[in-house]
């Protein structure tokens, strides 16, 4: 067996294939540790604490969207809808099984799984017409999808009691006999038991990274990227472009649905209005500023942009100006060759050191 050496480990972690992975997992674990310390030492404001789980959810959705926009090269404005579907399925399920499954961990898992799966099914259904389109058309259809889902969710009245499940699409035309309302039209889902656990959220982020990296660094990922770079060439070497893009879209919608469920569990009440197309645009902003196809960038950009408005609260009226300035700065920095190159040469140093010692 080869002897273990620190240098070998370094070159393994930071070589061309692995450096993105190492940096991404590293950032998440580091953020987790820092925040845990801040919490333990009572140095984190109540407001920021309450933002921890939502931030993780946004990171997951942004990573999911980057799969579609960055790797598959398709513009989707519908990811708020997948998050919304996941959120409402998740909270309804967790409410419904509340008495059946007393174990909270199990209930959370069931809720997240259900949210992911139902969102994935919708992702698959919408991908059939959508992926036949490209460019602006794709954006328009996914945008419409987002609005349709919002309107539908706005009109769902769902409850259950001893006599079973009651459902209406017009108004609450049923009375519950001691049961519970799961989704109450525009009011949304109410009476949830709040589950807010930063550790679980971080595990979900790590799991998402695991899925994203293992998908991208495989023959499936190569098919997806090839279909993005050149559809005609991809089909000329036997790649079913639609199939590759569908896979990417479905995985993305599953992840976004899971994030939605986790998000919903963080609140006792949740209105549909949250999941409108503004949210889709916001997530797209995270992705674009983080960099198309850039995973660590997406994590950092999302974190900064979610927390920023809160951190800038002291600036009161100037808050939005500062926010805009930060957006512009990120755009400039992430497109600056000098900064990019110096970052790359930093990683290059590790590589070269190792080669010299080889």
């Amino acid at each position, binding site marked *: 067996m080869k002897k273990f050496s620190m240098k070998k480990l370094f070159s393994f972690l930071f070589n*061309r294939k692995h450096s993105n992975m190492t940096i991404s997992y590293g950032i998440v674990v580091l953020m987790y540790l820092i925040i845990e310390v801040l919490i333990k030492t009572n140095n984190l404001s109540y407001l920021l604490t309450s933002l921890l789980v939502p931030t993780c959810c946004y990171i997951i959705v942004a990573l999911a969207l980057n799969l579609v926009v960055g790797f598959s090269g398709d513009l989707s404005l519908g990811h708020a809808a997948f998050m919304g579907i996941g959120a409402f399925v998740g909270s309804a399920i967790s409410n419904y099984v509340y008495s059946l499954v007393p174990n909270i961990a199990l209930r959370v898992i069931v809720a997240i799984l259900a949210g992911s799966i139902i969102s994935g099914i919708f992702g698959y259904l919408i991908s059939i017409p959508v992926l036949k389109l490209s460019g602006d058309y794709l954006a328009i259809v996914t945008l419409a999808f987002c609005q349709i889902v919002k309107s539908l969710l706005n009109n769902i009245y769902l409850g259950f009691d001893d006599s079973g499940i009651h459902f209406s699409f017009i108004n609450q035309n049923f009375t519950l006999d001691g049961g519970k309302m799961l989704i109450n039209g525009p009011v949304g889902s109410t009476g949830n038991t709040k589950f807010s656990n930063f550790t679980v959220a971080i595990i979900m982020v790590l799991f998402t990274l*695991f*899925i994203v990296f*293992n*998908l991208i660094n*495989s*023959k*499936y990922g*190569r*098919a997806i*990227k*090839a279909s*993005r*770079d*050149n559809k*005609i*060439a*991809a*089909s*000329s*070497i*036997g*790649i*079913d*472009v639609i199939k590759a893009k569908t*896979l990417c879209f479905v995985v993305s919608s599953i992840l976004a649905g899971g994030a939605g469920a986790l998000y919903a569990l963080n609140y006792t009440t949740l209105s549909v209005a949250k999941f409108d197309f503004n949210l889709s645009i916001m997530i797209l902003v995270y992705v674009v500023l983080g960099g198309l*196809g850039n995973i660590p960038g997406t994590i950092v950009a999302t974190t900064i942009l979610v927390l920023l408005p809160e951190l800038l609260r002291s600036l009161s009226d100037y808050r939005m100006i500062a926010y805009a300035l930060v957006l512009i700065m990120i755009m400039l920095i992430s497109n600056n060759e000098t900064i990019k190159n110096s970052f790359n040469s930093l990683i290059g140093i590790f590589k070269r050191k190792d080669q010299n010692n080889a």
Partner: protein
Amino acid sequence: MPEKKLVLQANKLGIDFGGLTAVNNFNFKIYEGEICGLIGPNGAGKTTIFNLLTKVYEASRGEIVLNDKVLSKVSTFEVNKLGIARTFQNIRLFNQMSVEENVLTAMNNDTDYSLFDSFFRTKKFYDQENQKHEKAMELLRIFNLDKDADSLASSLPYGGQRRLEIARALATNPSLLLLDEPAAGMNESETLELMNTIKKVRDTFNIAILLIEHDMKFVMGICERITVLNYGQILAVGTPEEIKNNPKVIEAYLGGA
């Protein structure tokens, strides 16, 4: 000598774009191990024939028989699975992927690990990835691209991009390779090297190669049989010698050259 296997046969192939008949009555046969040329003036319909054979366009008339099977309505990616690979007149690489990844992607249909294997990084996944990596590097070595395996495809010089496109097409294990102006934009020494590489490819893989090319030295030096196209119609078929001395071809295409 054993009979050579017929790889592809086109019978009375034709296509119209609106009122324009781009290709008409195209009859063609190519056998295993053969290198054939397709030449003709600009707009003669050469690239259109490649697009017909690979089902980028559906023919208006005629039929294509590939390895004894009539190609019915199939998609382009399925044509590749059946054995035709090609390059493009305007280079089409996966620009944001590495040189090696370009070739690896072409081996996807030959890689049978599942989504499960790639999510959970099973032994099967690593075995196949390593095996494909070896195979890709072998191919890149033939085209003298192995040193650039990790660079972005778009960062290769023009000649390198042309060679990578051929390597990528070969990685799909075709029985027929279509090359659309492989020597375009190459200098004399590069062209000479490419000629040798293509011959070597034919000898190693024993495949049929049909190529479009305007460089007459190249075509005459490498092809065993040449088909001349003019206004979508076959003008002449023959050996390089016959074509060179055919008065109709000289008038329509070779001209004073």
